[in-house]
């Protein structure tokens, strides 16, 4: 069943509709079964839709503002390092695990999944007391929660107040009628929702800055610097940076060294740290800074995760020390290599280098003993030749012949 007037109903109010047309349509609709059914259907649908209003919870409001501010913030804090830190925080940090058990305590509230980081887009809005969110790198604590960063530093959310106490710093109070606090680790920022605006707490390398609603920043210094395990994204980025450093070290050693140093100074894991140390050492070596290179090779060799590189690192350290004119220190490095890697794959090279060094310092007999039983490799043969030449030279000088 249809009605030719129903199209007018769909079209209502068309531009230029007159009062007469309006009245006429109303009259028709009240009397026409088809048009009245349409009006009821659409009217009911509109009412149902209008009644279904999604509310924005305060916690989501704060989370949204934090995320928006992180995405849109420019250098308006006048603290470039801080801004860099905030950007890094978004990219790098997972503020979840504390360095030790007693440095991570929550009382009076509940900390949910402290070691889990949520990927961007998986926001949690359930009634949990603490929310950990990678997208904005934040913790949210419910009212009555005390979050201890270290035994001496803590953030407390209690009765609408945020107390931020940092070791060696004055106490800071920020009023927060809504008890949701975002807190970030080193190089990060927090936003607290206040009456008519947002106050901001920022932490960067032991400095905390709070900008309450009157807009006057307060800056305090804290002794504590927090370290956190980097998330998987940071792992990937570290790997990419180290690969990049490796690819340019031959052509641009200083740049490679800078990249590796940056990875090392962040939350590099053991494997990344060894890689970075080795790259820094290589960069110094290529730059002719032998002593610095030797020092870094020593760090690689001594690193708990550096066993796979240690033998080579010790030989390189010895070479660098020799280049720096310190044959005794070079011999010590070679002794360490012999002790730790007696049958290592680089044993022939080690023997050869040891013979070269002993020959250089005139300890010919000792050098000869080192050659006994050594594998017959080009490097060992070269060392043997050098020793024989050195002996001949010495003998010829002693006999007075040219």
């Amino acid at each position: 069943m249809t009605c030719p007037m129903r199209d007018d109903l769909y079209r209502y109010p068309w531009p230029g509709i007159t009062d007469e047309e309006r009245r006429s349509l109303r009259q028709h609709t009240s009397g026409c079964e088809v048009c009245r059914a349409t009006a009821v259907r659409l009217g009911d649908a509109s009412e149902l839709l209008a009644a279904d209003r999604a509310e924005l919870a305060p916690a989501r409001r704060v989370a949204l503002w934090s995320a928006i501010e992180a995405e849109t913030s420019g250098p308006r804090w006048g603290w470039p390092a801080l801004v860099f830190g905030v950007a890094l925080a978004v990219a790098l940090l997972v503020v979840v695990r504390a360095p030790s058990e007693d440095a991570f305590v929550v009382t009076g509230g509940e900390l949910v999944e402290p070691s889990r980081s949520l990927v961007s887009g998986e926001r949690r809005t359930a009634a949990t007391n603490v929310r950990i969110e990678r997208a904005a790198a934040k913790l949210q604590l419910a009212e009555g929660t005390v979050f201890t960063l270290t035994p001496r530093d803590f953030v407390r959310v209690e009765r609408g107040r945020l107390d931020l106490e940092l070791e060696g710093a004055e106490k800071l109070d920020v009023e927060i009628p809504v008890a949701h606090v975002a807190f970030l680790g080193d190089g990060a920022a927090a936003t607290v929702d206040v009456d008519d605006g947002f106050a901001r707490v920022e932490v960067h390398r032991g400095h905390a800055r709070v900008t309450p609603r009157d807009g006057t920043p307060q800056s305090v210094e804290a002794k504590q610097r927090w370290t956190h395990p980097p998330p998987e994204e940071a792992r990937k980025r570290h790997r990419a940076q180290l690969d990049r450093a490796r690819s340019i070290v031959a052509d641009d050693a200083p740049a490679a060294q800078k990249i590796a140093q940056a990875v090392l100074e962040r939350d590099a894991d053991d494997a990344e740290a060894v890689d970075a140390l080795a790259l820094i050492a290589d960069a110094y070596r290529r730059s002719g800074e032998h002593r610095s290179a030797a020092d870094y090779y020593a760090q690689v060799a001594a690193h708990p995760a550096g066993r796979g590189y240690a033998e080579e690192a010790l030989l390189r350290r010895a070479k660098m020390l020799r280049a720096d004119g310190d044959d005794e220190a070079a011999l010590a490095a070679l002794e360490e290599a012999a002790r730790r890697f007696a049958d290592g794959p680089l044993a022939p090279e080690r023997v050869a280098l040891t013979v070269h060094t002993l020959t250089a310092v005139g300890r010919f007999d000792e050098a000869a003993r080192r050659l006994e039983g050594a594998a017959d490799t080009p490097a060992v043969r070269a060392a043997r030749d050098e020793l024989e030449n050195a002996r001949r030279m010495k003998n010829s000088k002693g006999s007075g012949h040219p």
Partner: protein
Amino acid sequence: MVVTRAFVAAGARGGYVFASALGESDTPRAASARDGLTLEKLFRDHVDDVHRIVARLLGPAASDSDIDDVVQQVFVAVHSALPRFRGDSKVTTWLYGIATRTVLGHLRSGRRHRRMVETLEAMTQVLPAETAHPEAQAERREALQRVWRALMQIKPKKRVVFLLYQVEGLSGREIAEALDVRPATVHTRLYHARRELDAALAREETQR
């Protein structure tokens, strides 16, 4: 924001009449004070409206995370557009325009649209409990689910106009400004949206 609907109940069922406040005579007031508008102020004053409109345009199948992502995108876009805002239209109209375009961009993904339709199909609860009576609650839930199933059959461009006009109470001119289209386009989309929605709802009724 006052919700104005084209079709309002007047008395008993069957006595539906047209609302007189249909907004065509509404004149958008030009924003008088562009100066002093900051992102934070806009966020504080309008995030609830933006959130509501985004949630409404995305529909009940959108997760909180989807809604928050779009709201975030809206304010990031607002941040970029703020220096160019001349105050020719109301701040709310301007904001709704950005919100609507962002939502349309979000819905442009066919995969996302399909996922939302599937989610809607799988949903058993789409309406928060407002009425105490369990049977009434269930009835409203089912009714709203039917409405959304029908709405999702309409193309997003038309659906958005229907929701802005019919549910959010924006005038045709405000919607035209917000979407940067001609008022005639708004009327055409509204006409088609109503016609298609009516047909879809009628089909739903016969399937019950």
